[in-house]
């Protein structure tokens, strides 16, 4: 599928702003990223919520198509957060009495409490993927929280240690990904922001857990890491504490935040076998980048990565942006990528 994409193709990381008629945006913006259920977020009564989410997925996909994005997602319109949708579909988690974890910013946060063996009660992604597939003729991507991040944000009261819990999460994530692929997902992505937040633990068992989650999953497979949503994390380092290690993973693509932290792209040389999904939109910038700015960011990466291994994307999920700004930024992303593509094809021609 990746072979059918243009040079310097474009995609989203995953989420897109949910409409105000679907979620309480004020509540969304006021709170942190929910790690346990937050049903009060939805504005549509439960009886009609799935239908409304279907319509929100249609809107998100259509916006991405209008902006010219090559690989579209469902905007994660059905999710309260990138993280908290999986736990209700699993055994071994006490949903009634959450545990307490520590976020990457050091704040205590309610998290899933693991009280028994992790298994699946029901599949989640397959039907969602099938729905999205029916909405667009473009390649589609689906995202899942990765096993390392799931483990980092859980209170473990059952497994002997964190690596054991991570492998248990990896097994159910793998089941979800297999079904997502069978349902038509062209790209599957593990969201692993906590690789960067807890690099020592990530070195201990992060790659093994990722590899278990991606076991048997045909390419392209993406691992996304970042410094956290621009909405919640403003001061970001200019380099990753965990990145070259991903070269050893099964993932074929590594998706990184690069624009807001002004990443020194030389670090991408440490990932010679991976396709880089480059963050080229600064989501902390309330302005909309010009195509020139986006093109410059792409060119900086091209100094270290071959064009055939580069895809342009926002830095992270766009969930917290106003929709008009998110759309305008995606248009800029597409325009910037096209500009660089034109330069490259002229050179080749």
């Amino acid at each position, binding site marked *: 599928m990746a072979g059918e994409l243009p040079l310097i193709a474009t995609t989203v990381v995953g989420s897109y702003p949910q409409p105000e008629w679907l979620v309480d945006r004020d509540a969304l913006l006021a709170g942190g990223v929910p790690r346990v259920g937050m049903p009060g977020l939805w504005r549509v009564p439960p009886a009609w919520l799935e*239908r409304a989410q279907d319509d929100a997925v249609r809107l998100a996909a259509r916006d991405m198509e209008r902006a010219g994005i090559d690989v579209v997602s469902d905007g994660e319109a059905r999710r309260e957060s990138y993280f908290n949708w999986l736990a209700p579909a699993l055994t071994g988690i006490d949903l009634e009495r959450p545990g307490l974890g520590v976020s990457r910013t050091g704040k205590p946060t309610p998290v899933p409490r693991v009280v028994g063996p992790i298994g699946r009660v029901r599949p989640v992604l397959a039907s969602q993927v099938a729905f999205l597939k029916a909405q667009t003729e473009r390649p589609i991507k689906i995202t899942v929280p990765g096993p390392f991040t799931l483990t980092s944000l859980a209170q473990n009261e059952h497994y002997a240690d964190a690596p054991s819990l991570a492998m248990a999460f990896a097994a159910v994530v793998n089941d979800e990904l297999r079904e997502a692929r069978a349902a038509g997902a062209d790209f599957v992505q593990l969201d692993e922001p906590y690789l960067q937040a807890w690099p020592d633990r990530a070195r201990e068992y992060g790659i093994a857990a990722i590899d278990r989650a991606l076991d048997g999953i045909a390419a392209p497979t993406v691992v996304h890491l970042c410094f956290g949503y621009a909405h919640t994390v403003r001061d970001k380092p200019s380099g990753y504490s965990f990145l070259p290690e991903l070269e050893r993973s099964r993932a074929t693509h590594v998706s990184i935040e690069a624009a807001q932290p002004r990443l020194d792209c030389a670090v991408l040389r440490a990932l010679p076998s991976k396709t880089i999904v480059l963050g080229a939109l600064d989501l902390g910038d309330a302005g909309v980048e010009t195509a020139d700015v986006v093109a410059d960011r792409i060119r900086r990466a091209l100094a270290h990565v071959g064009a055939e291994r580069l895809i342009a994307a926002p830095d992270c999920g766009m969930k917290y942006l106003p929709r008009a700004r998110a759309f305008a930024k995606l248009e800029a992303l597409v325009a910037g990528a096209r500009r660089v593509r034109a330069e490259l094809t002229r050179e080749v021609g």
Partner: protein
Amino acid sequence: MSADSERLVRDFCATWRKKNLDAIMAFLSDECVHHNMPIKPLVGKTAVREFVADFISRWDTIEFEIQHLASGGDVVMTERIDRFARAGKSFELPVAGVFEIAHGRIVAWRDYWDLETWKARVVG
């Protein structure tokens, strides 16, 4: 199909300006479902007709301005500003409308809007 469906929805929205009940209902199938998402859905043309008749009787002018329209297959999505006026006062409501089309008629029509905005602008 999409172009025909888009035209149908544009014509439907434009027809509201006339406040002609039969003209509006001519776009809807006998089994149509209309759902103003904060409240219960109306099922069947008779129920929808009662709603439309009541609605157009309450307002001096009605206008559905389509700001953006997109479609895929038999589904047409509109982002609109719906305007209503009576007794010299006018109101605006942002609405996202989703229409499902079959055999040249609207079979499902879902309007999403914020009940609090409606209350503040119209009821309040």
